[in-house]
């Protein structure tokens, strides 16, 4: 994981590459160490929820799956030490999770971890495409609004941002389906691939992209609205700083200054928010996946919630938090790449 995450920090333009890489690695190590108590906290919260639940841990782990095989039940009793005192149960639970033993999903008849990892790529794809859309649209709209402040365009951006910030994503998704799938027939109603269509090669990729458009819009426009607002005020703030005046005094045109000086600095608050919101993006995809029958973790969660398949629900919570932590570390590294001053600290 370390190698993959370090790559975005590798500076493409700066020659003192090695020292920056060292700084990036140091940051990475610090973040990974900080992640340990966070994960521990998530696991403890999970454990508390299990303890609060009506019924025993065992019933929870086998809920509504009619596990009556005494050998299986005995195995679970010893694995999770159900006759032990609570603190020892917690230790055993943590130990089990550390070995990625999230329990068994009797519904799919596979370990929970396998059930989740099958669905994770679809969710990550939806998250990445939504964040990309949100950043592209939000940043562009914010820049336009800040450059044409108090004009028609500025008003248009803020009105649109207000609406998309208030619209529930699942409702927006349904309305998009009504317009683009039911009325116009341009885009598929749901799913990730055409049933019976080509699943491999360029045709398969195009098919998935075709299915990706509406869910991406439904999930991404809410965040685009946030980024547009933040970007606008951040651009206006940075534009008043001294170094911008210096750049203008050097004789650069307004557009040149905006693109090469203001934009880069104004992006920082957007990146900060992006990191903070990673968890909400993942959670938002749960709802969107249910609207579009997108075969990701959200659909799995929804199925598991409806069938009281608790081990899967709890496993998704732990792994979801892990994804958020990893994404946050990536965002930190991007932040460092955008703002070299961090290196000094």
């Amino acid at each position, binding site marked *: 994981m370390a190698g993959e995450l370090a790559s975005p920090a590798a500076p493409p333009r700066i020659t003192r590459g090695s020292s920056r890489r060292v700084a990036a690695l140091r940051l990475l190590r610090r973040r990974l160490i900080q992640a340990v108590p*966070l994960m521990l906290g998530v696991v403890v919260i999970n454990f508390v929820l299990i303890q609060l639940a009506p019924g025993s841990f065992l019933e929870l782990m086998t809920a509504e799956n009619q596990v009556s095989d005494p050998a299986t039940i005995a195995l679970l009793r010893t694995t999770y030490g159900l006759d032990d005192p609570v603190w020892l149960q917690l230790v055993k639970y943590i130990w089990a999770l550390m070995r990625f033993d999230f329990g068994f999903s009797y519904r799919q008849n596979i370990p929970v971890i396998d059930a989740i990892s099958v669905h994770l790529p679809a969710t990550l794809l939806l998250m990445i495409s939504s964040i990309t859309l949100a950043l592209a649209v939000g940043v562009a709209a914010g820049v336009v609004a800040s450059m044409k402040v108090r004009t028609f365009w500025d008003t248009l951006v803020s009105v649109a941002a207000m609406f998309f910030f208030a619209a529930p994503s699942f409702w927006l998704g349904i309305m998009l389906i*009504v317009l683009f799938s039911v009325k116009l027939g341009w885009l598929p109603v749901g799913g990730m691939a055409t049933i019976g269509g080509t699943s491999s090669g360029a045709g398969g990729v195009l098919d998935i992209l075709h299915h990706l458009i509406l869910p991406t819009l439904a999930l991404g426009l809410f965040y685009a609205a946030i980024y547009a607002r933040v970007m606008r005020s951040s651009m206006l703030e940075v534009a008043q700083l001294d170094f911008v005046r210096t750049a203008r005094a050097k004789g650069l045109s307004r557009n040149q200054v905006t693109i090469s000086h203001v934009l880069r600095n104004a992006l920082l608050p957007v990146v900060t928010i992006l990191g903070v919101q990673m968890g909400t993006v993942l959670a938002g995809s749960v709802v969107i996946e249910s609207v579009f029958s997108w075969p990701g973790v959200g659909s799995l969660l929804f199925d598991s919630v409806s069938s009281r398949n608790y081990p899967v629900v709890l496993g998704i*919570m732990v792994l979801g938090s892990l994804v958020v932590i990893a994404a946050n570390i990536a965002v930190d590294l991007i932040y460092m790449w955008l703002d070299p001053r961090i290196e000094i600290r």
Partner: protein
Amino acid sequence: MQRFEFIGRFARNRGALIGAVLILVVALMALLAPLFFPVDPLRIVGQPELWPGEDADFPLGTDSLGRDMLSMIVHGARATLLIGLFASAVATVIGVGVGATAGYFGGWIDEIAMRAAELFQTIPNLIFVLTIVVILGSTLTNIVIAIGIVSWTPIARMTRAEFLSLRDREFVQACRAMGMGDLKIIVAEILPNALPPVIVLSSLVVAGAILFESAVSFLGLGDPNVASWGRLVGDGRQLIRSSWYICAIPGVAIMITVLCLNLIGDGLNDALNPKLRDR
């Protein structure tokens, strides 16, 4: 005098004023729902799937079973607003409690509180709400508490920041010199001064809580006895090919309410920080 000035500043923000008026209308609607629509909103009163305007008796049409959409929207306003308000209250109580303790005492207490806030930001919020609701049961109380539990962190951070800047002011030192206890200083002296920005944030948390609740109900995990707007959208989902208005109307109601709450939050913010107004 100062209060009038504040109201004046708030009222000068046209968006905030419109938002406040509309929210007042929605709240009145929620309060007076039984007066306008004394019949149980979930009772079948007409033909199914009447489009809005098709029958003068049902201005917003009827749903798949022939229930009056307008009546369901008006009654649904009650559930939606109440859940939003209570969840925001839960979040505010937790957030102010944690933030005030962290900011006032500092040191390791602060460290622990902030790590806890980070922890609750890490867990994907809606997944957490769904997990709580599914394990502890889909009752109104559980949903409200669950939404409160995932929404308190921004309030805690804001309260903490206010406390940090206020705790060493002269008036607080004077209280300490007089031998006032910590609890009394926190509650009676610092808190009133720290509250205004926290209240703004709470109004935004109400909006967020309404969106949360609507998502939970939309997924069919809301309290089965409560017909909130989110559930109405979920109920209409099967009919988007023939009667998409059944989905559209409650969604518009959610959107308008959340929009107005956001406008009010913006207006309060501007009124509290007049210097930022012209940004």
